[in-house]
């Protein structure tokens, strides 16, 4: 491979990693506080849609970016209402949130544009360029620093590890978890916005393509820690970029490379990590357990 194609591959790795970075960070914030988040996919969908709709309507991608945060947060609030307030099972409610988002998006498209498939295409000038990528790395740094250095970062980590310890120390677990879930909605919403107004020029259905779940895999692979999680996102992004690049390419023999094996790699290694075959991943101890005051 030539230098150019390597640089090319790296550039596309960074690009496809960006939505993953946002979503995985969102998952991290929520799960470190003790709330499982398999609803990342749904939050990405509404974020992608809201960003595209508002950017198209106003012509300002940054308003779209803000709308993505808002939409992600609204969905996260529904999720929080179910699992924190109404003590619904977090997996069940997460699945429902994903269904809700996947079903609502085409519906909104049809109401707004009369077509279910996608939003109208944005002009190139209306799209966000590399900014989301930079912002994603800033977010990784901020989240890492926040968790490590600030008071609320400590609260968040203890909320997911030993909520009783937090509440006997005088900090409300429920409030911490609410904040975490809402923030995860913002971050995952931005992950979706990256897809619709930075990497492409419209929202189209199925555009998230399971990235919310891949973010979850990266989160586990990164052992619920910000920097390793970001590294996992980049690794999975590399696999993704490589897979796109190698599609239909004949490297040896007469058959094209079976890229499916690269596609499944992130998920397969996550299973192996969880089973303790490759290293050890340890979830926050109180993950998935509702907290009764």
């Amino acid at each position, binding site marked *: 491979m030539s230098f150019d194609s390597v640089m090319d591959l790296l550039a596309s790795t960074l690009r496809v990693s960006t939505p993953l970075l946002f979503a995985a960070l969102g998952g991290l914030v929520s799960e470190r506080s003790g709330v499982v988040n398999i609803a990342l996919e749904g939050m990405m969908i509404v974020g992608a849609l809201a960003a595209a709709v508002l950017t198209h309507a106003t012509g300002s991608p940054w308003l779209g970016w803000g709308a993505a945060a808002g939409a992600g947060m609204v969905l996260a609030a529904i999720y929080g209402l179910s699992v924190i307030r109404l003590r619904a099972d977090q997996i069940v409610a997460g699945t429902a949130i994903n269904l809700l988002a996947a079903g609502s998006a085409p519906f909104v498209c049809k109401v707004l544009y009369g077509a279910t498939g996608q939003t109208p295409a944005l002009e190139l000038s209306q799209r966000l360029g590399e900014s989301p990528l930079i912002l994603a790395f800033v977010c990784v740094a901020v989240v890492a620093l926040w968790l490590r250095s600030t008071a609320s970062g400590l609260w968040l980590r*203890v909320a997911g590890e030993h909520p009783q310890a937090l509440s006997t120390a005088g900090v409300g677990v429920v409030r911490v978890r609410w904040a975490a879930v809402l923030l995860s909605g913002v971050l995952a919403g931005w992950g979706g916005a990256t897809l619709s107004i930075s990497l492409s020029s419209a929202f189209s259905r199925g555009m998230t393509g399971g990235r919310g779940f891949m973010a979850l895999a990266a989160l586990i692979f990164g052992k619920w820690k910000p920097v390793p999680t970001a590294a996992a996102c980049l690794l999975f992004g590399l696999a993704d970029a490589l897979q796109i690049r190698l599609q239909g390419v004949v490297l040896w023999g007469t058959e094209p490379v079976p890229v499916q094996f690269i596609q499944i790699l992130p998920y397969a290694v996550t299973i192996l990590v969880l089973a303790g075959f490759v290293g050890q991943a340890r979830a926050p101890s109180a993950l998935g357990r509702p907290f009764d005051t």
Partner: protein
Amino acid sequence: MADPTWAIRIEGLTKRFRHVVANAGVDLRVRRGSIHGVIGENGAGKSTAMKMLYGLIKPDSGKIFIEGEESHWRTPQDAIRAGIGMVHQHFMLAGPHSALDNILLGAEPSVPGTGWLPRALRPVDRTRAKEKLEAIAQRYGLPVDWEAKVEDLPVGIQQRIEILKLLYRDARILILDEPTAVLTPQEVVALFDNLRKLKAEGKTILIITHKLKEVMSFTDRVTVFRAGRVSGEVETAETNPQELANLMVGRKVMLQVDVPPQPALGEAVLKVENLGLARSLGKLESVDLEVRSGEVVGIAGVEGNGQSELLQAVLHPTDADCRSSGSIQVFGQNVTAWTTARIKSLGVGVIPEDRHREGLLLEAPMTENYLLGLHSDPNFSKKGVIQREALETACRKAIQEFDIRPAAIDLELGRYSGGNQQKVIIAREFERNPRFLIAAQPTRGVDVGAIEFIHQRILRARTEGAGVLLVSSELDEVLALSDRILVMYDGRVVGQFLRGQATEQEIGLLMGGGK
């Protein structure tokens, strides 16, 4: 107005839960700068009183004065602000986090110059916190590796971290709930050394325990709880273990049990030799035990002294979490490498100590609860298919014989009263006419009528030639039913008596670790 003498004064504290009066007019006074022991059996009401003192639950009536000031708090935070700190029996520590972070939690100092940020977002000044803690640690002689993860530290150090948590918050009154339950003897000595230093520095310390020895050697004054009341408050120097034991067990309403004459002793139904379990898993130390057919062997002891572990080891000998060493024979066969199902199929009946956790399917009907454990029995299962008719017949018979109410076989078990749930278990476990019966806390949470019935059934099994191993934290029950009594303390058997050989007081003394 500050009270110069008493750090804590409790007057007429009363707390009623749905069916039980946990505290009935408790009075308690703790002198400033003293180590004060609170002692009593399980369920005597000491934990309830401490929880009210710490603001975890609200009293129905009564008054609490802290250093002369009447308290009206609702949450632990109010108690913390008033200078009270509590080390819970189960530590409130987040394992993967550093000792430092665990101590700071909820009281983080901010980096100077960041006051303009909301408190939650202020960076934590760990350096300053560490300096303050170093000073505290030095003053009280409680060194800790601040950066170490809590889960990597021994239990004794974890406890030290809990104490530092309180000192960091300037607590003047420290409550420690069963602080020695998880410690090795050396750690216990170290703990009390530290507590003496704290006392010398003017702190007031309240220790909840059931160990007489500790109370005698480490406290200044003792309050004894019995059945929700204070049965005595004495200066440690003016009392002795026997007097404390008397106050603790007292003379409760003696159980009226008609004990039929003991049949001739037969073969050993259970023989346990040198049974051991690592302390980290619960602790058993070289326990030897024999139960022969035709006798009831009762195990007395305050809960948490190895009784549960003993039963688990006998029933799950292959589980490494239940048994570290030793051998188990049932009916003369070595079952040490057997599965639970195989052991039980020899003819072992078990009344588990926690029926909701280990004995029942509360959401399932009575029939299925009856089936649990008998589901492979050829009477109820042919070629893998459940024999419903046989099962229903057996259930109806059991309802008659054991007077189970309501007399419905398809009602969810969760809707039965405790006593009737227990009867379902007993009926089930008697189905196979066990020649070896394990009865753990057989009458816990059971109404009076059912207690008598259950006792009679246990004694009838003995008359019919079964061997019975009875475990109960109710000393009366052990005394009334057992032909032989073993006393367990700290994972060991510390005493053995035949029926009538020992008084309640003597046994109470051993249960508290006294000699």
